[in-house]
């Protein structure tokens, strides 16, 4: 397995998060103090305030009631928390974590991310990285949210690697009647299956 790099150690393999993680990882219903939650950016963080609502579905199209979705994004100016966060942006957390509800739903509140440099310095369109964990996922799944009303999508170097017929699975769509609200569903398998990445 490591023939090409005999000096490297085998990494610890992933195992499923299982169905019983909530009292540790998303412990709000257990009176616990969560490490992070659906609030990626607190009120007052600079930028355009948005909400993202969606649900996780399995290969039968049934909601997944025991998934955990983690979000990771840059702030409105394209800076990552903890890395090159400016003091003026202490209200920006960058990380979010939600347990899906009985109907598979999850919800994040944040600011729209700015542009981040891509390969060879080409700009990337605004995006949010997601990791999906659940019983039945032996290894978490990595996908990205892009925004339907974003002209920069056309030149995004990562979207450009995705089959044009499947890019729609990565696009959050504005809700018609609710300003700032986007809809983004995650379909693990089957019709409209979300595109998942490896890096």
């Amino acid at each position, binding site marked *: 397995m490591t023939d090409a790099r005999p000096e490297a150690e085998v990494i610890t393999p992933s195992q499923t998060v299982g169905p019983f993680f909530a009292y*540790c990882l998303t412990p709000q219903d257990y009176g616990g103090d969560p490490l992070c939650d659906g609030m990626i950016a607190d009120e007052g963080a600079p930028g355009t305030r948005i909400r993202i609502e969606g649900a996780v579905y399995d290969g039968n199209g049934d909601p997944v009631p025991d998934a955990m979705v983690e979000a990771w994004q840059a702030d409105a100016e394209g800076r990552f928390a903890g890395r090159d966060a400016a003091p003026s942006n202490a209200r920006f957390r960058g990380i979010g974590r939600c347990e899906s509800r009985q109907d598979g739903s999850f919800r994040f509140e944040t600011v729209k991310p700015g542009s981040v440099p891509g390969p060879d310095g080409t700009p990337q369109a605004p995006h949010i990285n997601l990791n999906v964990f659940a019983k039945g996922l032996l290894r978490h799944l990595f996908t990205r949210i892009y925004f339907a009303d974003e002209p920069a999508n056309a030149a995004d170097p990562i979207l450009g690697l995705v089959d044009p017929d499947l890019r729609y699975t990565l696009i959050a769509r504005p809700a018609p009647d609710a300003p700032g609200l986007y809809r983004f569903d995650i379909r693990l398998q089957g019709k409209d299956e979300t595109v998942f990445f490896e890096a």
Partner: protein
Amino acid sequence: MTDYPTESLAAHPPYLFPDYVATRLRAPSRPLVIIPQTLTEIAGPVFGQAHVRPGDSDLTRQHAGTPLGERIMVRGRVLDENSRPVPDTLIEIWQANAAGRYVHVVDRHDAPLDPNFTGAGRAVTDSDGWYEFVTIRPGCYPVPGLNNVWRPAHIHMSLFGPSFLTRLVTQMYFPGDPLFPYDPIFMSVPDERARMRMVSSLDMAMTRSEWALCYRFDIVLRGREASLFEEPHHD
């Protein structure tokens, strides 16, 4: 800037592993799309001492009384694949109690809850990557809805590491568990060496006499290759 090598990902289990029934409707059917590692992937959340309270790493002292079961220490290092320690990284753990029952509301296993045991903890690695928990050895338990399928005793662990790409959720097992060959989750890891990465070992040197056995469990995360401009690492 060097990338995280992708060869090491071969240690992970496949998404579809039919013996683990729950993968059948949740594993994606299309291959993953391979993308370059951009700043979004190379960056990652920073969680450290500020996110851990005193006592979070001792799961036997979170209630008025002492939990039932065998008290143990779980101690080890978080390293990257190049054997460099991963300092100041958060570890979250959760587990069943000594009877094999989780606090989680969905767990209906016919085994008692322990009013003195929740089974959730946090710790942060020190500057050399070391961490330590005190807990109760978890019991094994049957998987609900399946005929005579039992999980070997295990402790769930969740780590961030330094970047989005080092995120890991895994399970720590105990040495010599006779349930290993019957557990599709454990057996889903195809490579024997990688499987054994998930098995702790008895550490008699760190065991505290007349108090608790110590199990050693090192966790190896993805790591970037050493660049030509970097000092070689010596332990």
